[in-house]
C-alpha cells in the first residue's frame, strides 16, 4: 500500500512544521460563485497566495447568494465568521444596518495603511455601495447589468433590426411571431429588470428618500403611471404571444437559447451561458427606451455582489485582507475576470486594459453593459436602490407580477399591492434595525 501509517504521520508532521516555519496568516473568504466562476475565484486566491508568502487567502464556496449570506450571519452569531464574505446587492441595506458586524472597506484599507483611491472605480458601480457621506462600505467584485439579448439570425430572417425603443420591441416581436417564432420577447429577474432598472433607465424614482439612500422612512413609489402603463402594455402583448413569461431569475434562459423567443432581457453575465448554449448568432444591445416616459436613457443600475469585511478579527489579518483587496482590484485581475465571466470591469483601468487588448473588437457587444452603466452621471434616481428586507420585497414583486402575467389582476392592482406589502416590510426592517 502506498499510504502506510508512517507516511501519513510524517506528512502530518511535515505540514505542522511547514505551518510553523512560514506562519502564514490565514484570511477566510466565503463566496457564492459555483461552477466555472468558482474555479476562477480559486485561481484568483491561488495567484495571490503565490505572489507573496505572508498571507494565505482561503476561499470557500458557501452556496448561492442567499445561502452564503445566511451562513455568514449564522457564523457571526456564533463568533465563527470569516474575514470576507460575498453579499449580493439587495443584501446591502441589511449589511449596512449591522454596524457592529461590518468593517467598512474604505476604513479597513486606511487602518491597514494600504493605498486606496476610490476614483479608480466606475461611479455607477461604487455609488451603489457608498454611505450618504460617500464612504465606500464594501468592495465591488462581480457586477452586471441587464441588457437586451437578441437572436440575430431570427431577427434577420424576419427582416427587422434590434429594437431601440419599446415601440420597436413590439414591432420586432410581431415580426418574429409572424415569421413563425413562438414568442417575441421574454425576461428574467423581473423586479430587477422591469421595475428597478426600468425606473433608473428613465430617471424616475422607485421609492422616496433617494431610493432609500438618504435614510429610513422610505416609501415605495413604483406604482406610478409610467411603470404601470409599461407593464399593462407588456401584459397586453402576452395575449398574442408577443411576450411570454418564463419564470423567475434565469429560468427563462432556455426559451431564448432554444429559439422559442427572439429577444430576452436579463443580466449581461449570461454571456458565457448563452455562448455555450445558443446554436445561433446572438447579440446584445441596450435596454429599450419608453419614449412616452423619457426622451433619452439615463443609466442602468447594477446587480451582482460585493465583498464585505466582517469585524472582530486581528489587525494583522486585516492587513492581509487589505493587500488582497488591492490585488483583486488591480487592472490585470479585473480585466481577466471581466473577459472570462461577462461581469463588468469595476475599475476604469480594467476597462481601458480590455480595450487595449482588443477584447471588444473580437467580441462585439460585450461592452454594452459598461456603456449602459456609464451613460450619464448617476442621479438620485439612478444611483441604485437601498431598501431593507429587499430580498423579500423582490419576492413580493415577483408574486404580484406573476398574478399580472397570469391575467388575474391589472398592472395597477399588482403594483399597488406590491407597494403596500413592500412598505410593510420596510417598516418591519426599520424596527429590527432601530
Amino acid at each position, binding site marked *: 500500500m502506498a499510504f502506510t501509517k508512517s507516511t501519513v504521520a510524517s506528512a502530518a508532521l511535515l505540514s505542522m512544521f511547514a505551518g510553523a516555519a512560514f506562519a502564514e496568516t490565514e484570511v477566510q473568504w466565503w463566496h457564492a460563485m459555483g461552477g466555472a466562476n468558482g474555479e476562477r475565484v480559486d485561481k484568483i486566491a491561488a495567484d495571490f497566495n503565490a505572489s507573496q508568502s505572508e498571507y494565505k487567502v482561503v476561499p470557500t464556496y458557501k452556496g448561492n447568494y442567499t445561502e452564503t*449570506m445566511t451562513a455568514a450571519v449564522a457564523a457571526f452569531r456564533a463568533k465563527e465568521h470569516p474575514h470576507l464574505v460575498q453579499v449580493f446587492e439587495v443584501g446591502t441595506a441589511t449589511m449596512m444596518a449591522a*454596524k457592529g*458586524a461590518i468593517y467598512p472597506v474604505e476604513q479597513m484599507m486606511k487602518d491597514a495603511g494600504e493605498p486606496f483611491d476610490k476614483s479608480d472605480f466606475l461611479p455607477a458601480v461604487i455609488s451603489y455601495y457608498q454611505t450618504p457621506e460617500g464612504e465606500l462600505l464594501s468592495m465591488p467584485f462581480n457586477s452586471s447589468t441587464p441588457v437586451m439579448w437578441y437572436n440575430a439570425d431570427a431577427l434577420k430572417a424576419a427582416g427587422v433590426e434590434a429594437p431601440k425603443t419599446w415601440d420597436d420591441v413590439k414591432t420586432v416581436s410581431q415580426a418574429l411571431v409572424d415569421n413563425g417564432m413562438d414568442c417575441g420577447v421574454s425576461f428574467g429577474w423581473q423586479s430587477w429588470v422591469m421595475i428597478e432598472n426600468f425606473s433608473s433607465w428613465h430617471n424616475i424614482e422607485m421609492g422616496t428618500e433617494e431610493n432609500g439612500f438618504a435614510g429610513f422612512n422610505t416609501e415605495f413609489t413604483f406604482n406610478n403611471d409610467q411603470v404601470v402603463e409599461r407593464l399593462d402594455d407588456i401584459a397586453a402583448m402576452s395575449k398574442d404571444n408577443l411576450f411570454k413569461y418564463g*419564470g*423567475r431569475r434565469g429560468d427563462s434562459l*432556455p426559451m431564448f437559447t*432554444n429559439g422559442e423567443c427572439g429577444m430576452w432581457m436579463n443580466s449581461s453575465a449570461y454571456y458565457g451561458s448563452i455562448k455555450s448554449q445558443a446554436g445561433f448568432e446572438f447579440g446584445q444591445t441596450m435596454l429599450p427606451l419608453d419614449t412616452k416616459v423619457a426622451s433619452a436613457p439615463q443609466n442602468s443600475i447594477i446587480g451582482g455582489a460585493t465583498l464585505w469585511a466582517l469585524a472582530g478579527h486581528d489587525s494583522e489579518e486585516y492587513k492581509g485582507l487589505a493587500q488582497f483587496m488591492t490585488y483583486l482590484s488591480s487592472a490585470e485581475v479585473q480585466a481577466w475576470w471581466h473577459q472570462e465571466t461577462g461581469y463588468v470591469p469595476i475599475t476604469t483601468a480594467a476597462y481601458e486594459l480590455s480595450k487595449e487588448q482588443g477584447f471588444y473588437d473580437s467580441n462585439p457587444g460585450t461592452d454594452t453593459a459598461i456603456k449602459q452603466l456609464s451613460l450619464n452621471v448617476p442621479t438620485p434616481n439612478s444611483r441604485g436602490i437601498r431598501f431593507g428586507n429587499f430580498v423579500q420585497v423582490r419576492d413580493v414583486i415577483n*408574486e404580484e407580477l406573476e*398574478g399580472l402575467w*397570469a391575467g388575474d389582476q391589472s398592472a395597477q392592482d399588482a403594483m399597488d399591492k406590491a407597494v403596500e406589502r413592500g412598505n410593510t416590510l420596510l417598516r418591519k426592517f426599520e424596527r429590527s434595525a432601530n
Partner: protein
Amino acid sequence: MLKRVHFPASALPYLLVAPQILITVIFFIWPASQAVYQSFLIEDAFGLSSEFVWFENYQVLWDDDQYFDTFWRTIVFSVCVAVLSMGAALILAAFADRVVRGATAYRTLLIWPYAVAPVLAGALWVFMFNPTLGIFPYMLDMVGIDWNHYLNGTQAMMLVIIAAAWKQIAYNFLFYLAAMQSIPRSVIEAAAIDGAGPMRRFKDFIFPLISPTTFFLLVINAVYAFFDTFGIIHAVTQGGPANSTTILVYKVFNDGFIGLDLGGSAAQSVILMFLVITMTVVQFRYVERKVEY
C-alpha cells in the same frame, strides 16, 4: 390485605434512561424552547439589536391574509399527497400481493423510489416538466394542453403534489404489502369458497383487515406532507408562482433563511409545532378507536 413488594431505591433506572432523556432535552426540548423564545423577539439578522415584543410576531401572522391562504394550501396539499400516494400504493400492493412469478423483482422496483433523496426527486420532475425542454409538456402539447408551471399556479401545485406523492408511494407500498401478506390465507380462501370474487374479497376482507396499517400510514403521510416535502418544493417551484405552492414549512424557511426575519419565522414554526402535536394527539385518541384491530 394488599401485599406490595418493595424494591430498595436505586440510581440504576435513572442512569439507564438518562441517555434518552439527555438526547430528548438537547435535540428536542432545548431547540424548541429556543424557537419559542425567538418568536417573542424582533431582531436584526446579526443579532445586534433585539426587542422583546411578546406576541407581536403572532399578531402579524394573525392579521396576514396570506398566512391563512398558506394554511389552506397546506391542508389541500397534504390531503392530496396522502390520498394519492396511499391510493396508488394500495392498488399496487393489492396487485403485487397476487403476483406469483417474479414477485421479488416487482417489489424491489416498486420500493426503489424511496431511496431517492427529496431534492433529487424534485430535480427529476423539474427536468421532465420543464415547459421548454421537458418531455411531458411536449406530449401534453400534442393533446392541446399548454403546460407552464412557472406561470400557472394550479399546474405548479399539481406538479409538486405528484412529485411528493410519487416519492412516498414506495414507503406506503411496503407497509401495505406486508400487511396484506400477514392476513391468514384461510380467511381469504374461505371467502373465495363462499363465492366472493377478487373485488369483493378486497372490499370486505382485505381492506378492513389492513385498516391499522392505513391508520398508521395516514399519520406518517400527514407528517411527511407537512415537513419532508420541503426539498421537493424547493427544487421544483421554490414556492412560486405567486406563492401558489408555498406551504407552511416552506414559508418558515423562506421568511427565516431568505428573508432573515427570524422572529416571524420562529413564530410560524412554533405554530407548526403545535399543529403537529394536536394532529397526532387527535389521530391517536379519536381516529384510532374506530380502527378495527
